[in-house]
């Protein structure tokens, strides 16, 4: 399965890690955003199959960016990336339409498992 993925994270380290995981699985990372502000515009341009979205980012949070993307495309598949202990934020994100979430620190297979499940047509 070939997937076009967009990664939104303010930390370069996390972006690179996620990018490596995607590429090893044969997925194409078509866009990267380092802030919530840039996310919507990039989503419009690339219409990726899947977005990974860090929840906590400076300025515009991942949840706000998620809301903007969902308003733009209700069928968007957004997977939230969250640190341990941010359950209430994750819940908020799910209520805002996130398809699933991954808790840091994560293992490679865990990330791919969630991505594959989210891509199952429903």
């Amino acid at each position, binding site marked *: 399965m070939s997937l076009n993925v967009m990664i939104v994270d303010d930390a370069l380290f996390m972006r690179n890690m996620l990018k490596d995981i995607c590429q090893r699985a044969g997925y194409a990372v078509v866009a990267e955003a380092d802030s919530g502000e840039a996310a919507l515009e990039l989503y419009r341009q690339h219409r990726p199959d899947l977005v990974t979205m860090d929840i906590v980012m400076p300025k515009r949070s991942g949840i706000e960016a998620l809301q903007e993307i969902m308003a733009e495309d209700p069928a968007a598949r957004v997977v939230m990336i969250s640190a341990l202990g941010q359950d209430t934020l*994750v*819940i908020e994100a799910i209520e805002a339409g996130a398809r*699933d*979430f991954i808790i840091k620190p994560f293992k490679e297979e865990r990330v791919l498992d*969630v991505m594959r*499940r989210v891509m199952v047509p429903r």
Partner: protein
Amino acid sequence: MDMSKYRDLFFSEAREHLAQMSRLLVALEQAPADRQTIDALFREAHSVKGMAASMGYEGAAALAHHLEDALDHVRRGGEVPVALVDRLLAGFDLLEGLIDDLQADRPERDIARFLAGSAGSRSLPEAGPDRMEPPAPPSPGTEPAAVGEPAAAPAGDLPTVSVGRVYQVTVELAVDVAASAARCLLIVRELERAGEILSLTPSRETLRQGEECRRVQAWLRTEVVRSELGRTLRAIAEVRKVTFADDRRTDGGRRSSEAGRSVRVRTELLDQVINLSGELLTQRFMLQRASGARDWSELNGSLTDTARLIEELHHRSLQLRLMPLESITGRLPRLVRDLGQKSGKQVSFRVIGGGVVLDRVILDALADPLVHLVRNAIDHGIAGQGEVVVTARREKDLVLIEVSDNGRGMDPAELRRQVVARNLLSAGQAERLSDREALLLVCLPGFSTARQVTETSGRGVGMDVVKAAVEKLGGTLDIQSTVGEGSRFRLHMPLSMAIIKILLVRCNGLPLAIPLTRVQRTLELPAAAVLEGTPGRAFRLDDAEYALHSLGELLGGASGSGTDGGKDLCVVVIEAPGRPAGLQVDALLGQRDAFVKSLGFPLSRLPGMSGATIAGDGSVMFIVDPYHLLEGGGLPARYQESSHAVL
């Protein structure tokens, strides 16, 4: 406000009111001036109106209001005219049908015509929803409808009728799941996509607050089939297990349409159950302490107390399922009235022992058979004038329900003749039947479908269905009849289907359970007392001859587990089709209470296997129903290999 959680309660209460109204209407017809009956009817209609309006069932509320108004009107007039009784009866039927529609989630039947009919009738005051004061504020757009078209407006505004099946879904998460509440919310979202969530544990609010949770349980009304929903749910990350269940032990899922139905329980009984479980909690700590201290005498004492508590709790929990017989006899007076009127017979009707309680599964399943029996009593039993009585009473572990009439009665000789004439039995077979067996011929399917039954020869309508229903529930049907005096149809039913008393026997080296309700007695029979003959072995007891079967052989085991060695035989005398019979077993092991687990397919198809229970050592023990086993002549050959493997 979300009213869906009150739905079950509404229907269970509405049914009680309807049953009461049905009784009262028949009473009203007999005593049209009885003020108390009119008052009681008025209150019933009033209750239904208020409940229906609260639920937003505007059609039902309007109709109930209409009936209430009519009753209020006659309350002032004194006596109820005959025409009005008929109209009230018709209105009541319509209301009952409407409640059926609502409960089954199908489009509501038209009541506008009925209500409109009243506008021209002088005996009824005009009534419509305009004077209703529903406790819930009416939704915008629900203008009070004009008389003459009252139902049209509410019907259009009713919420979309939901369809589909109701079942329970349980989703369990992996043990080490992170952000479990969020994960549960994902599951809830999928459930919502699939259908309407009727109830949810834990609640959405609890989940939103981030409470840890590894298990979501929901009652769902959905058109999505289980396998499909299961696939969707299992596709969610961290989901470990998805299980489905209906409301209760299902007959192969046939009862699923009734899933979600509720039972009303006396608060007192509920309190007792809660108290007992509380005591058990305390008891657990005492057990833990005693075991920690290795104090054996303390441990022993605590165990005894625990056993007592568990038994008590068990007993009380079983009572939660019991309901009085009168909960299903409510509609019978009306039935008798209508049938009497139709056939031009004068029939009086009584229920004796309506307070006798039975498991509600059994009651539910008995409702139709009872109607059949009462109908038959009027159609075929009563000639011109007579009485039909439904009697219930406890007889040891059983409940006897009897439908009797003082009509023509049935003639066994005539029944034998009929059955031969219809080629259902040979003349020789018919001659060998005892009178008791001959009366049961009316339960033969071929007999039942014969429409032209002579007046004295019997009543066949649906008796095979009645018999099958009774036996499926673990009961027996027996018929007594005397020509010229009347007939009694006697149903012996178990009290409960979940817990039964069993007799433990050993057979082919394995323990087996036989429901005690099927056992008349046990005995040790000297080998010399066995009479060898054709068609098989027999023995005499108290001047009667009983056929002797080997349970082992019936179950497909080796034959010849017989009289060798001249030792005494262990024999269980059981209820069998027609007449009691003896079952030879290897040993009698004792009695106990057993919690019945129903068998899944394909085991459920084995004739004579009515379920299984868990023995004290944790092993599975099958419950054999000898009645069915003998009826079918034992397990057919094609089952024998598999039954061996199972047993």
